[in-house]
């Protein structure tokens, strides 16, 4: 198995005719993802390469049986696109869009609470089950099928980690970027608990960063519920307080959200801590 997505996932792409949307749709198809539909309001009936384009997500789902969506729309329309997908019954919604206003996401998150769907992101690289399905903007070829689950708040930092794992022969079951925004859909705990229940996953790498207390909560959850070994890394130990480090969510507010507190929480809860990014592959090799 793997988690959330696999070779049977039928993907639709919202914003498929835009620059990024068309580029990454082609990359996903090339990787082997089953892309069944695209949505761009006003372009229904056209084709993007061999993919039929619809005006609404509901029409695309009805016409193609799509059960996952990848969102590339600009930030002002991000919240609307996520809600449209959820309302159309899409099970897995992956929002790449960076810069959605936080109050939009606060409303979306409460809207989604009553829906049966999983949102990944926004402001994330997406999700990949190596060898089966890539839904996102990550470079496919650095991944390798295997048994390590990877969950991260970042994009290129995740690629760095995955690349080191692959070069040491450590393949991955599923890699998920949950996004760098302060309010997001799927959180660390959702992913950790899915990895725990997944037969293919034998070990977990968790990549966090400064800001908020999601890593602290995840660490306590790992202690209580996860029996598989976990290696943890935190980015931003040298970040100054009160400054937003690129990601909207990466900010130390007063005494909360510091890297030191997160590392301490990792150690207190039996997580193997990697303090130097250059070493993470080697540490995983040792621990796993």
């Amino acid at each position, binding site marked *: 198995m793997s988690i959330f997505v696999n070779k049977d996932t039928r993907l639709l792409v919202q914003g498929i005719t835009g620059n990024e949307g068309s580029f990454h749709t082609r990359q996903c198809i090339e990787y082997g993802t089953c892309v069944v539909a695209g949505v761009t309001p006003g372009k229904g009936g056209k084709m993007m390469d061999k993919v039929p384009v619809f005006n609404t997500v509901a029409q695309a789902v009805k016409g193609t049986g799509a059960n996952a969506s990848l969102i590339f729309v600009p930030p002002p329309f991000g919240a609307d696109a996520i809600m449209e997908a959820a309302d159309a019954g899409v099970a897995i919604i992956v929002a790449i869009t960076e810069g959605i206003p936080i109050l939009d996401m606060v409303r979306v998150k409460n809207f989604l609470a009553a829906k049966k769907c999983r949102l990944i992101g926004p402001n994330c690289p997406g999700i990949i089950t190596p060898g089966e399905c890539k839904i996102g903007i990550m470079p496919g070829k650095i991944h390798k099928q295997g048994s390590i689950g990877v969950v991260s708040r970042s994009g290129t930092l995740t690629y760095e980690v995955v690349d080191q794992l692959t070069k040491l022969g450590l393949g991955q079951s599923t890699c998920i970027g949950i996004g760098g925004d302060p309010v997001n859909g799927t959180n660390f705990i959702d992913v950790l608990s899915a990895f725990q229940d997944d037969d293919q996953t034998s070990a977990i790498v968790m*990549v966090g960063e400064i800001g908020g207390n999601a890593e602290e909560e995840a660490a306590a959850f790992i202690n209580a519920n996860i029996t598989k070994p976990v290696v943890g890394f935190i980015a931003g130990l040298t970040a100054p307080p009160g400054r937003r480090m690129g990601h909207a969510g990466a900010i130390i507010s007063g005494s909360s959200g510091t890297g030191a507190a997160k590392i301490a929480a990792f150690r207190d809860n039996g997580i193997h801590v990697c303090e130097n990014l250059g070493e993470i592959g080697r540490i995983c090799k040792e621990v796993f």
Partner: protein
Amino acid sequence: MKIHEYQAKDLFRRYNVLVPDGQVAFSVEEAKQIAAGLGGFPVVVKAQIHAGGRGKGGGVKLAASMEEVEALAGQILGMTLITHQTGPEGKRVQKLLIEAGQKIEQELYLGLLVDRATASIVIMASRDGGMDIEQVAQKTPERIIKVYVDPLMGLQGYQIREVGFGLGLPAGAMKSFSGLLSNLYKLFVAYDSSMVEINPLILTPDDTVLALDAKVDFDSNALYRHKDLLELRDLSEEDPMEVEASRFNLNYINLEGNVGNIVNGAGLAMATMDIIKNAGATPANFMDVGGGASSEQVENAFRIILADPKVKAVLINIFGGILRCDIFAQGVVDAARKTGIRIPVVVRMEGTNVDEGKRILADAGLDLIAASDLSDAADKIAAAVN
């Protein structure tokens, strides 16, 4: 985005959140005129900078006469105010808020912010007004009232009462408080605020509640729908290099160290700063050119960092996913030829088309130091500055 107290109070007035009479002054003469218009003393003279702790730093004073207004305005205007939020270099005061003094029965704290964990707007209030709320939260958490507002439902009457009575306000002040809090909530939502803080909020002897201070931050991602707020941005309060970088959509933060760095992606950029520190050097900045940066962005990033006199060496760390290493390498070569390199530059690249990228760098005949992996890059950059 941050704004000044006087600007926040103007917004408060527009939303019928009660504040003292007052106006901003840019000179001693203006300060006197405004004070004369307030119709009495005492008058409060408040330094306007984008940082808290102004009172402790000597930037907020009470004047009992026009002579004192003149003396205090002259003293505070132009002074460099150092508070726990300005850093050791402090901030130069260029404007003052001249305000009518108030009779204070009680000082309270009131704040609104987005709560990440519950995805709601949280109202925080405390009877310990005027104090550092972080410390109150740490030492006496029971003295902080927290009410979580469902953003789809909005603020409810019972929630306002929960906060008001929780603060111990007399029944006679509840009408005033209720109006203030519900208007403040409207302002918060209407302007996509990320934080609104009133410290202190005061109760006067006639049971009126008003905002003696005002701090408002806005969500930068939402500014596209609040064009009127853009006029409130005060560039003189920001680091000039950061302003320059923001013109090119570069995520840049100026820091104290001497190792400049350029990285694609925020997470990797933070991790790279940590690597520099681990190797025994200190980062001069945070610079994220974006996960899929263009060669033009790379060039601008390079130019901005090389213009920083404290930078003694530069580490470039790129993981080419969407951004191909060959494109990136070309950007570095172009930038280096245009600006010239007078300090050591260590380049570490990995990912898509990395061999082609390395060839471009090697063939350029530039004095770049190639690193084979992250650990190697860390060692080489540390050796370059130490």
